[in-house]
């Protein structure tokens, strides 16, 4: 038992390997937030008048809002006036091919293991890379364009496809939705935009890679993904940030719209800098993610692997509006050291015969706090709705906490809703069983954790599953026996 503990301490200290800083000249707005900042961002992006108005409306609403305090997390108040709301890697002109991207920048992405060139061409993943909230390059654009798929940065979409952006932006997460989404609407600087036309099955994984680089900035990106009737898309996002002593704010908004018979699969591997072992620094990840199953027989599936961030506040949700629509949520949330996670999902059953499935696995180590907070709502007209939720927590060490806050509201008697949750630690008998067969304790623990998270890992696209498993191993290295 003592051995286990010391091993725990040993592995908790494992390093964050994405913590480097890239020396890139950045184009920045001065810190502070007021209408001028918003005008500055909007002007920088050369945005049309309606976009600026929309931002200002959001800003004015945000001023009236209060920061939420109901989540099971603790942090010092954020000074919204000390954050730089715009930071872009300086680039002379718009790039046409990836070869023209600043070599420093390309090196950054290579270090991250995301080569924007040929290598990835082989693996066939289209990537939109976003650094400090500005998209710096999108791969595979031409091939996608042949299928009429639009995949570009959102600023580009505002310029080139204003009708689509205007129609859908804010339709799932309105500017009045919550404090952080209103802030995002006011100051978002970039993000990804994707439109899959009717009946098209996107032939490759689409991916966005987010990176915070500059100091003192906040990252506010906005992703908008529309799957038109009968289409299919699988979308991945990943994120990292350098090691800094300060806490940086990341307040993103993701909106998904699935029309009739469409399917969206959205996977996230979140690995923002979690802070050091004393809880200093790290990213505040306050994200609003929501999808709507607009048409009948549509499906939205969220998969997330949350290993980073000093604080995670994130509830990817699905509004099941279309009849026979399906919502899924698969999550592995790992907290170590002083990390805090309050994450979960919302499934709003509005249409008839709608189904949802929630599988949440929480792993806490060190002195971290890991909470699952979820809502399953079955509306009055959601006849024959079906939900199954499972929330399992694994505790590694005796100073961490695991919490479950499931809200279940049922207003229709034909609904069938089930929820179950367990909390436990790794059994000594399990370890013993492995030891007995010549597997050392550390490997045994890794094995057990992998098994614990497998149900969710299996949902990830293959390209990500490998990375996610490695990540899981790294974040918990040694913290388990």
């Amino acid at each position: 038992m003592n051995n286990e503990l010391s091993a725990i301490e040993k592995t908790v200290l494992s390093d964050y390997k994405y913590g480097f800083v890239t020396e890139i000249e950045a184009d920045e707005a001065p810190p502070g937030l007021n209408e001028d900042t918003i005008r500055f961002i909007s002007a920088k992006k050369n945005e049309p008048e309606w976009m600026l108005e929309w931002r200002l409306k959001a800003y004015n609403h945000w001023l009236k809002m209060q920061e939420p305090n109901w989540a099971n997390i603790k942090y010092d108040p954020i000074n919204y006036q000390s954050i730089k709301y715009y930071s872009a890697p300086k680039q002379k002109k718009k790039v046409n091919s990836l070869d023209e991207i600043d070599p420093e920048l390309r090196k950054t992405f290579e270090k991250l293991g995301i080569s924007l060139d040929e290598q990835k061409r082989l693996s066939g993943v289209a990537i939109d890379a976003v650094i400090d909230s500005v998209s710096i390059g999108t791969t595979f654009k031409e091939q996608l364009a042949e299928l009429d798929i639009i995949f570009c940065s959102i600023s580009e979409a505002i310029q080139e496809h204003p009708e689509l952006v205007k129609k859908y932006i804010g339709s799932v997460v309105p500017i009045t939705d919550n404090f952080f989404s209103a802030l995002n609407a006011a100051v978002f600087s970039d993000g990804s935009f994707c439109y899959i036309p009717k009946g098209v099955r996107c032939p490759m994984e689409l991916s966005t890679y987010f990176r915070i680089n500059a100091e003192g900035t906040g990252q506010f990106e906005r992703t908008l993904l529309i799957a038109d009737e009968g289409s299919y898309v699988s979308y991945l996002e990943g994120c990292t940030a350098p090691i800094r002593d300060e806490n940086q704010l990341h307040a993103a908004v993701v909106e998904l719209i699935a029309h009739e018979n469409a399917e969206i699969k959205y996977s996230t591997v979140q690995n923002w800098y979690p802070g050091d072992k004393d809880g200093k620094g790290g990213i505040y990840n306050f994200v609003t993610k929501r999808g709507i199953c607009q048409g009948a027989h549509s499906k939205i599936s969220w998969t997330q692997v949350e290993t980073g961030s000093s604080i995670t506040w994130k509830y990817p949700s699905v509004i099941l509006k279309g009849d026979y629509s399906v919502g899924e949520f698969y999550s592995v949330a790992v907290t170590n050291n002083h990390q805090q996670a309050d994450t979960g999902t919302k499934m709003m059953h509005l249409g008839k015969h709608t189904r949802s499935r929630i599988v949440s696995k929480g792993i806490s180590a060190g002195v971290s706090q890991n909470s699952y907070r979820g809502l399953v709502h079955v509306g009055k007209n959601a006849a024959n709705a079906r939900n199954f939720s499972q929330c399992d927590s694994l505790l590694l060490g005796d100073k961490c906490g695991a919490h479950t806050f499931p809200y279940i509201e049922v207003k229709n008697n034909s609904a069938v809703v089930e929820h179950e949750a367990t909390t436990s630690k790794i059994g000594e008998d399990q370890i013993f069983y492995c030891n007995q067969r010549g597997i050392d304790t550390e490997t045994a623990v890794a094995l057990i954790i992998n098994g614990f998270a497998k149900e969710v890992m299996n949902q990830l696209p293959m390209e990500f599953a490998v990375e996610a498993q490695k990540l899981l191993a790294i974040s918990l290295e040694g913290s388990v026996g």
Partner: protein
Amino acid sequence: MNNLEYIKERFNQLPVVNEQNGLGVIRQKAFDALNKMGIPTTRHEEWKYTRIGSFFNKEYKYHTAGAFSAADLAPLRLPAYEQANELFYINGHFSPELSVIRSKGLTVQSLQEASKNEYKDIVSKHLGHSSNYLKDGINALSTAFVQDGVFVHIKKGQIIEHPIYIYNITDARQANVLAQPRTLVYVGENAQVKFVETFNTLGTQESFTNRVIEIVVEKDAITEYYKLQTDASHASQVATTHIQQIGKCVTHTVTVSLNEGLVRNNLNIVLDEEYCEAHLYGIYLQQGQSHIDNHTVVDHAKPHCESNELYKGMLDDQSTGVFNGKIFVRQDAQKTNAYQSNKNVLLSENASVNTKPQLEIFADDVKCSHGCTIGRLDEESLFYLRSRGISEATAKSLLLHGFAVDILEQIKLAPIREYVDKLISERLEFDLA
């Protein structure tokens, strides 16, 4: 004048309390808390699904109890009362005249008195402990008027053979009544005791009962507690039962809610010593416009404790059900076993249920689980019965009765179990024969 202002004015009219008796301090503190927090609205997380604000916009009276005849009381009495200790609260005030004490080792006196005599240490230590868990004005309101309360003491090593029946009677024959019965129970070392509590309203005016009972259980004691709620639709209540297990002991509670009005139950169990055991059971069968809200807290403060919770509900017509079960496992409380389950059957299109089984765990070597289900009667089981020539109505009530039996079996007092079974069967129109 609205009720809250009336309450505040009444508090100020009460005789200035003697600071030294301890009660005065507790009361003033609670009154300040009430002023600060007010009556909870649905913005209060713990009151999200239950509205009680409207009860405080009406006019109520405290002292309007008329005279009681034996005939008035007869239909309210529980079965086998001849063999029980009986405590009567009329409009929240203890009535020594009506009450009957049969057992030795059982002392019942006013809290006012107990706060000055040999029990004063117990009173000052444990009275108002529930306010640590209930941060809202409604609990503070009860404590602010605590001087009308009762102290029940069970002597060390005493096995109380006769169950203690507690009758809460609100006499709403002349006016709307606000009743605030308050009780502190101390179960001494190695003692055994069983409580049965009921609520009844006379007359047709409205009544609102804000009742708090705090039970302190010592080492090696066994306490059983049964709460029966069968009050009428014009009677509403917030009923708080706060149990502190301060030695290794066992408690067993069953809450039966067949109310027609609004009921909010707070059941808190604090396992404050190693090797405690707590069993919590509940059944609710709601019809019409009724509303049941069961909030339970099990606080595992010490290691090696075990708690087991099962609540089952059936909701018909436009009734609404709320279940909020919390399990806390503190950092020290290693080797905890905690189980919680909530099962609901919705019987009509307009019934609804909001449930939130919640776990907060700070220790790693624990086994905790919770589960909840919401659904309707199983079609296949119904078909099985129908295909054997049983009418639809009978088949349904048969299945529902079967659903309720799990909880009924937990009522260990035979006369009370039979009585509750009869009440439930009547509601389900289920013929026991």
